[in-house]
């Protein structure tokens, strides 16, 4: 369905300003409706309307790399309440390739997914997965791991693939550098990412049905981040991602860059914090004003037998669970917890892949219900109390709270008792 029919006619005061600055350009297929803002912190609860459905934020987006959510069917994923998930442009561009997906009438259709899709630019995967890659002004040059052919991924190429995939949100190609690198390369990457953003905007063939998000770069350098924010927010893009983080940098640097970014990002547009997915990070960064998150961790760890619970995690393959006849989390209402015990899952991991599917279903449910709880508490005006309860449950004592989380929360006036 076209977004225009889905979009609420009344965007309220919030969006009025946006459309005026948008001037002549056509409206993007996205509308952000801010429902509540935490009076204490920067947290906010919004309805983000996209071409395939409305997304309730803050939201965690599970990652379905190759056009599938691991062993979960698209029906199961939708039943878990997932409104948006990710596909990886690098993988899908390689196999089955954009031509085939175009023939299949887009990725939604190919994988039979009725809700929204976000695709990355492919740049991150290329730099992290492919040893032989070289970044030039033109784009990222790399050798295909499948046939050895040399391929150039330019901003135009990345957008062309994402146009073929037909995702609801596309990401610009950015010049990715490790978050632990310092020096002139960081500045070069930031400036190049701005130039590439302009090329991506120009290359988007479907601005009426595919949203293009900019990615804020600048490493761990506050001045570079600010410069990037200042420049990118001048562009008329429907949303912003905070990039270049979650790559092994110190947590103290991480949260400072996040909060700096949300300080400068326009209130009226969605903010997507890339690659973040641990429970405590989700809660803290929601407090810092981020709306969208993604991470492979919850589904990956599920396949290795680890179930996420409000007090941490359960490595179900460990012998200690062999005779534990409780569900993973007695308070969880996912299909796995309603039917199976830790002991049965422990046994099943020895012989069948269905064990992974059970834990994947539970972990996705855990992530989605955590974000749902964050949202409800914001809507009900009790987000700070929610954070305190969350921390008490997650950590055995106050002494074990991670100091970065305590400081980050204090920076937005949430004190932990």
């Amino acid at each position: 369905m076209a977004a225009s029919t889905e979009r609420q006619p009344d965007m309220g005061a919030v969006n009025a300003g946006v459309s005026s600055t948008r001037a002549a350009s056509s409206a993007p297929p996205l509308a952000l409706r801010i429902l509540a803002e935490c009076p204490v912190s920067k947290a906010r609860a919004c309805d983000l309307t996209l071409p395939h459905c409305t997304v309730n934020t803050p939201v965690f987006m599970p990652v379905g790399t190759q056009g599938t959510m691991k062993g979960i069917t698209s029906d199961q994923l939708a039943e878990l309440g997932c409104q948006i998930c990710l596909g990886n442009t690098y993988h899908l561009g390689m196999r089955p390739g954009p031509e085939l997906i175009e023939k299949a009438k887009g990725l939604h259709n190919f994988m039979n997914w009725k809700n929204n899709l976000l695709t990355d630019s492919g740049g991150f995967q290329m730099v992290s997965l492919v040893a032989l890659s070289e970044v030039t002004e033109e784009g990222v040059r790399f050798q295909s791991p499948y046939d050895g052919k040399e391929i150039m991924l330019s901003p135009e190429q990345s957008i062309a693939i994402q146009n073929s995939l037909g995702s609801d949100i596309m990401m610009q190609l950015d010049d990715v550098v490790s978050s632990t690198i310092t020096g002139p390369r960081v500045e070069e990457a930031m400036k190049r990412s701005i130039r590439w953003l302009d090329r991506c905007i120009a290359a988007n063939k479907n601005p009426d049905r595919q949203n293009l998000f900019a990615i804020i770069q600048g490493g761990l350098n506050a001045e570079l981040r600010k410069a990037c924010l200042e420049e990118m927010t001048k562009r008329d893009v429907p949303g912003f991602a905070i990039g270049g983080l979650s790559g092994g940098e110190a947590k103290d640097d991480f949260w400072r860059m996040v909060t700096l970014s949300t300080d400068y990002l326009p209130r009226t547009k969605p903010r997507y914090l890339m690659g973040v997915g641990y429970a405590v990070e989700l809660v803290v960064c929601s407090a810092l004003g981020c709306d969208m998150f993604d991470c492979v961790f919850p589904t990956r760890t599920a396949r290795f037998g680890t179930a996420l619970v409000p007090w941490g995690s359960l490595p179900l393959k460990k012998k200690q669970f062999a005779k534990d006849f409780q569900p993973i989390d007695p308070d969880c209402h996912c299909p796995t917890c309603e039917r199976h015990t830790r002991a049965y899952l422990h046994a099943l991991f020895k012989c069948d892949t269905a064990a992974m599917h059970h834990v994947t279903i539970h972990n996705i449910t855990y992530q989605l219900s955590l974000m749902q709880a964050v949202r409800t508490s914001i809507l009900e005006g009790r987000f700070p109390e929610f954070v305190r309860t969350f921390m008490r449950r997650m950590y055995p004592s106050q002494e074990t709270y991670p100091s970065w989380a305590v400081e980050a929360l204090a920076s937005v006036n949430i004190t932990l008792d």
Partner: protein
Amino acid sequence: MRLELCRVLQQCRRGVLLDLGNSGVHSLELPGCLLYTRCGTVPHLTHHTLSTLKHLPAATQLTLDSLGEHQEVLEEFQEGVRRFAGLNDTLLFCSLHDSAVHHPPGYTTNKTVSVWGSGGRMELTVAQYMALQKAIRPNWYQSMADGETRQLNPARKRVCKAVDRTLSHLDECLSLHFKTEELSGAEIFGVVEGGDVSEERVRSARETAKRPVGGFVLDGFHTAAMSQELRSQLITAVVKELPENKPRILLGVGHPEEVLACVEAGIDLFEGFFPFQVTERGCALSFSYTLDPNPERTVFERNGSEVEEIPQHRENETQENWEQMTRFEINLKDKRYQDDFRPLVVGCGCYCCRSHQRAYLHHLLMTNELLAGVLLMVHNLEHYCGFFCSLRGALESGRLDAFKRMVLHGRV
């Protein structure tokens, strides 16, 4: 348990088993197949994906191969595998081996048999075998048996010994069975052995039939062991010795052509491992089995040609795949399906065919994605169970010959 035969044609039986299970509420249509599981789970499937299937068998098969290593856990759990595995209210049949797995020969002794789990081999005496059944609490289970003749080309003396041992195991199992409170209400199925020696088969059947068993398991007839001609001859000889009012389960045979021949020879129930094996090699069952095509199931009309195409495209397969793959399936890994946007089987109503296309399955297989196994298992199970359902319909309407032509040649 009560067996009602509604139609018998020579040895071929169409019937229904009634008053099954502890509560007596189950019934089982014959001929039929069992639901294949490992550790109480249909491979790749969760309750959600399994429940999308329409023709699920009313009886589920468990194996000691996959459950043996969990004996201690089950004993502590005390409520049996049904509760442990979160199974629906289904009839449970427990067999010794998983027919989808090959076991090395040479591990059967006078007093013991062996099972193979993830932790390796486990040796069981009759007492241990029965303790395991007590922990599992099936509705039906096969008695301990010397199925060693499955593995080798055995000498007559060895065949004779297997029959003797199996009878003596049965007597010991029966004596413990009636002393075990947890197994009251459960039925022991006696195992007929005898390899390819007709006299031994008859002796095994005749002696087993004298015991208070609930039904019969015919062992050692698996696909690699003998030709279908010999299999049919032996089964015919065996069932002559068996009472009419008790069910007969055949182990190790799942191939549709062999199933049809064995039904004609008098078999009531088959294992369900065949659709799983098809799934594991990345294939989808595609043979026609619908005699009366209706708008919803136009399998044979539009898909009939698929079956005949296969021998030619099988030449592109690796030798290994070629040997395993049957002409009842299509290989979704084949490049020809890369841009084929049809469902696996046109007209199939399974979740996979309603939601996805061959090109997507091809992609999932090429990228080793877990969803491939899930979707193929759903389709293959639906197709295989649908085949049995149509087979029963054909028996009722006296059209078995037309049905056989349809399955074997794709046309009536």
